[in-house]
């Protein structure tokens, strides 16, 4: 149990660190993907050294063993100081960590965990063109064979929407090893080196010019059997550990960042001389309260988790509330900016509230679509919280 005095001590410790070390001008230094990646690597290394990069890891790792309340303090301060979000290392420190920590063998843990702290990055090979919201319908095929005297899975198929796979060293991969029985039963979980022969990565050009995601193609890729996590055919359960890894800190952090970025809307109002436009002031006022409410619900969500009283569906509410507010925020920016926003301006990689309003508006769709679409979250809210009946499983054309 951490008491308030300890939390406040941690808060001032983080603040002093940030005052001395926080990167300045990182937005300007993130105009190309390469520069963005370098900025991210530097900042991650600094945070690892300071002990703030992996507060959620167990205490045997330096900087680990922090309570959720302490993690919240660290993330609040990072957001308030407007530091870069840790995007490049997100999958490795959350998804890969949770998978390894909860489901992997001791050998696998010993091999990969330290490498994450040294900056090795991971991507997630989950979604496929035919398996998005319905992830268990995935088809990427793995056949177990003996090649050159070694047992391997030979993988063929395609993954899509893999965040920053083009920069990743390793991949958390879901493959189909059987098509018998229910679709969840034939899924196996593998850890793959991205440099394995037969793997090719192709970035996805998003509508705002960013390339945050990539496709991964597998052409007879041989993955040693020792790289499997859990038993063959039991990958779906392991995948749940991966997907549950994020503890709600991201949305709290993003909420605080959006609140900080409301100043950008205020700037637009002044630049365009709308200070006395009552209609615009109303819309701005409504947005301010909406963003405050998103911060309040994200806070409450984390407090409920800390106190062990979280309910199913709570996370879906926070996600939908944040993503809708982000849409409203960026849309108001586009509207107030007028024609100025229709001329292409440089984008900033890795930030959601950049002040390039068209880019921010388009980017906001990532939050209503990725990570469980808005519609999937609505199903969870309706079926799990409001206990409404599910739709029948099968249908006939």
């Amino acid at each position, binding site marked *: 149990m951490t008491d308030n005095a300890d939390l406040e001590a941690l808060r001032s410790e983080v603040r002093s660190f940030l005052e001395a070390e926080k990167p300045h001008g990182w937005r300007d230094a993130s105009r190309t993907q390469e520069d963005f990646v370098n900025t991210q690597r530097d900042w991650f290394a600094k945070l690892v050294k300071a002990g703030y990069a992996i507060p959620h890891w167990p205490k045997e790792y330096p900087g680990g063993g922090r309570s959720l309340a302490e993690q919240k303090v660290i993330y609040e301060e990072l957001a308030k100081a407007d530091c870069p979000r840790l995007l490049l290392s997100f999958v490795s420190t959350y998804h890969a960590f949770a998978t390894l920590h909860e489901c992997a063998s001791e050998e696998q843990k010993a091999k990969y965990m330290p490498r994450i702290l040294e900056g090795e990055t991971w991507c997630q090979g989950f979604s496929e063109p035919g398996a998005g919201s319905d992830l268990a319908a995935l088809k990427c095929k793995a056949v177990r064979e003996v090649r050159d005297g070694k047992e391997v899975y030979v993988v063929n198929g395609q993954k899509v929407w893999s965040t920053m796979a083009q920069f990743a060293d390793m991949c958390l991969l879901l493959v189909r090893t059987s098509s018998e029985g229910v679709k969840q039963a034939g899924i196996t979980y593998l850890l793959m080196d991205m440099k394995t022969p037969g793997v090719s990565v192709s970035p996805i050009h998003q509508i705002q010019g960013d390339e945050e995601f990539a496709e991964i193609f597998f052409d007879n890729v041989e993955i040693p059997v020792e790289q499997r996590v859990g038993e063959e055919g039991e990958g779906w359960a392991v995948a749940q550990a991966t997907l549950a890894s994020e503890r709600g800190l991201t949305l709290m952090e993003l909420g605080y960042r959006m609140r900080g970025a409301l100043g950008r809307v*205020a700037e637009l109002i002044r630049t365009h001389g709308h200070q006395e436009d009552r209609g*615009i*002031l109303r819309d*701005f*006022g409504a947005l301010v309260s909406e963003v405050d*409410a998103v911060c309040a619900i994200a806070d*409450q969500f984390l407090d409920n988790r800390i106190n062990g009283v979280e309910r199913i569906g709570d996370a879906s*509410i926070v996600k*939908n509330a944040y993503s809708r507010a982000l849409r409203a925020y960026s849309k108001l920016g586009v509207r107030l900016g007028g024609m100025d926003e229709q001329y292409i301006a440089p984008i900033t990689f890795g930030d959601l509230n950049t002040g390039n309003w068209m880019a921010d508006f388009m980017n906001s769709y990532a939050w209503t679509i990725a990570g469980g679409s808005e519609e999937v979250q609505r199903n969870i809210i309706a079926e799990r919280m409001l206990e*409404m009946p599910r739709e029948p499983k099968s249908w006939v054309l």
Partner: protein
Amino acid sequence: MIELNELTAAAQKAFPADNLSPARDASWELVAEMGWLMIRLPEDDGGLGLDREASTAIHYEMGRVLATTPLIPAQLGLQAVIESQTLADRADWLERLSAGEYAPLHMLPAKVDIAADGTVSGTIGGVFDGDMAVAVVAKLPIGYALIPTDADGVELVERPIWDLSRRMFDLVLTGYKPDPALMLSDADGATAMHDALGPEAHLALAADCLGGASAALDMTVEYMKMRKQFERPIAMFQALKHRAADMKTKIVVAEALLWSRARDEQATRTQIAGAKALASDVFQFVTEEMIQLHGGIGLTEEHPCHLFMKRAMLNLQLCGSLDSLNETVGREALAAMA
């Protein structure tokens, strides 16, 4: 110290969810018996001395049952007396109001003129349940005043409203001569009084809105699970269940803001006004959806959908409209972000 959940449980027992808009006079007696009239009266003055969170919890429960009894204007009227530096018989008034006499704060603007001889003429809007009021707490250009309803030049005129769960009156003044002994503040003190009462009114109304919205959602969900079309409950259709999910999301998010403001002693007047704006907007949204999702029955007088919708529409206007509150929040945020 009374725990919040005990307070909520007591309220739900006294005002059960299946009895919407319970009779006003019996409710008023019950409310007085529960001590809620003195909920914010300091213990030294004989009250319960509870905080904003506690009164917010009570107003939330009263909103859930579409309460007919005017607890919000009563609490605000009493708070004006508590805040008053000028009222001659302050202790006497506190005792009378705690014991169940009713002196409401008006919830809509006053439009009055002061004549050269100091008499006041005009209309004080938004006096709830004026028929049971002994006096009205009114904001006059010369300051806040207690205006006895039986004084010369004072008339209560009922204004029938669409909202069937409440009764509203205008206090019409014709050459009314304010009693100096009944002044709650002078003109200079009126701003401080207004600033003290505003957040209380906004928290109470926001709670009323979200209690109502949450009851409206519960009824809608229950109906959607029971009502069958095309051989299945309509709650099974994604097109409809997604709307219920959005209702839930909006309510929960607005509630998070309400509670965070109610607990935060540093919250500004404008931040609390923003919580009322959001809550009233959500209440309206939820009741519109409630009617649509109930289909034809939602349009009938026999079904309570319309009671929720009408209350939501009135709440939008009380103590600042949605537009004016949003404008205030926007203006202040803009200034703060200079």
